[in-house]
């Protein structure tokens, strides 16, 4: 043990350093977010509660092709269609079991019409499982609640552009930005 180490251990230099660090930290601002009182805004492109998109006339965009359900890794999308009056496809039921969803966003990518989307809403805890079983009606209401007006259009333009319109992704989207940079 050198003399320097001996002096260090006799006078507790390391412990005093630690004490001064904690004392300095005592007077810094806490980083705590007081969550239920102060809400944290969702980041752009956040994948939260599902919504079924409506077009300008207020009709559901979904045509019932079933691609989202085929893609879904946790297989929590159920679509039931029947033949309509003039041989069109009618979507009778479009249901998502939210508790099984893993929010991967594959359904949004798969959809050729931009009909399904993931909103920025993330506070939807409930006491019953039935409340979290999203029927077509609830999903359409979600669109009105969380994507009304310009927001839905902007969200689609920035993050979930349907492949039918444009094959390239947004520059803001992290993975695509990185791919273009390299």
């Amino acid at each position: 043990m050198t003399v320097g180490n001996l002096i260090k251990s006799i006078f507790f230099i390391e412990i005093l350093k630690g004490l001064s660090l904690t004392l300095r930290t005592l007077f810094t601002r806490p980083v705590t977010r007081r969550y239920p009182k102060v809400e944290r805004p969702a980041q752009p492109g956040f994948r939260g509660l599902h919504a079924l998109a409506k077009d300008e006339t207020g009709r559901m965009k979904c045509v019932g092709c079933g691609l989202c359900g085929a893609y879904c890794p946790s297989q929590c999308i159920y679509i039931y269609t029947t033949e309509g009056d003039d041989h069109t496809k009618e979507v009778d039921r479009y249901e998502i079991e939210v508790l099984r969803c893993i929010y991967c966003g594959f359904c949004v990518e798969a959809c050729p019409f931009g009909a399904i989307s993931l909103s920025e809403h993330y506070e939807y805890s409930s006491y019953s499982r039935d409340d979290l079983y999203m029927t077509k009606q609830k999903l359409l209401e979600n669109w009105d609640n969380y994507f009304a007006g310009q927001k839905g259009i902007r969200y689609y333009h920035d993050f979930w552009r349907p492949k039918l319109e444009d094959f390239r992704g947004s520059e803001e989207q992290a993975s695509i930005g990185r791919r273009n940079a390299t």
Partner: protein
Amino acid sequence: MNTILETIIAPGSIDFALAIGIILVKIAVVIAIALLHVAYATYFERKVIAHMQVRLGPREVGPYGLFQPFADGIKLFFKEDIIPAKADKPLFYLSPVIFFIAALTSLAVLPFFDGFVIADLNIGLLFLLAMSSLGAYGIILSGWSSNSKFSFLGGLRAASQVISYEIAMGLSLVGVMIMAGSLNLSDIVRAQHAYPTGVFVIPQFLGFFVFVVAAFAETNRLPFDLPEAESELVAGYFTEYSGFRFALFFLGEYTGMLIMSSLLALCFLGGWTIPRFITDFIPFLSAVPGIVWFLMKVYAFMFFYYWVRATLPRYRYDQLMAIGWKLLIPLALINILITGLVKAWIKGLL
């Protein structure tokens, strides 16, 4: 009225009853204030440690979370009282009471300001050491009677730790006893006031250091909280306790911390007095009541408890024993030797 009473009961017993009444009132006041301090010591601790860890601490109950201790107390009071099926029931009931009573009894000999002490014992210091040893019985018995391996290990660790550090603590206070020439805590404080430096910490810095480290170990606080090491032993000796029995351990531990802080303030920092050269320099400070100085010193050391807890990790068990036996006890013995020699030299015995 008095004459009628004195004819019924023995003469002189009125004074006796009055003295007992005064003592009872004093006890009630001291216990109430001490328990209030304990309640807010927990709040203060949570706040200090939270801010040292860049958190906020309790904020929800009342303004700035000030009613949090009462919410915790009410919660503990209504918790289910669980007793392990194979526990040694009488001892299981008794041990938190022993622990808590030992801690509360120590309050009796502490002079909070000049003349205010419940029992002005001539062996006050010895009594305090004895009571802190008795508290260790509560810990050991709770570890034994719970019939759980975690409790048992915690109890064993507490036993060895408290015994080891009891020696160092007692020896560190011998220097103070030599300098004051008394075991009475009030006399020790008066001796400090008469002493040129006003506090014993300056000549007795070795004893002070040993006492501070031993005080951490005696109250099972970090960095010496091995008896209740939560990462190894769940909660140590009180693992099996719940509800108000657990609360008794909790209160006892914090009362013990307050008592150790008070003992430090009384024996090394001048108790309710401040050094005379300060009052000579700033005369109006002598008008401040002594209890203010006493409480300031106690709070400062309580803050130090929390500060160290927020800084240091737990020592390993062999390190704990090595510090106790190989560092603190020799240091305390050197301190006694030097103090004794100097005292003998001053008295002209050498």
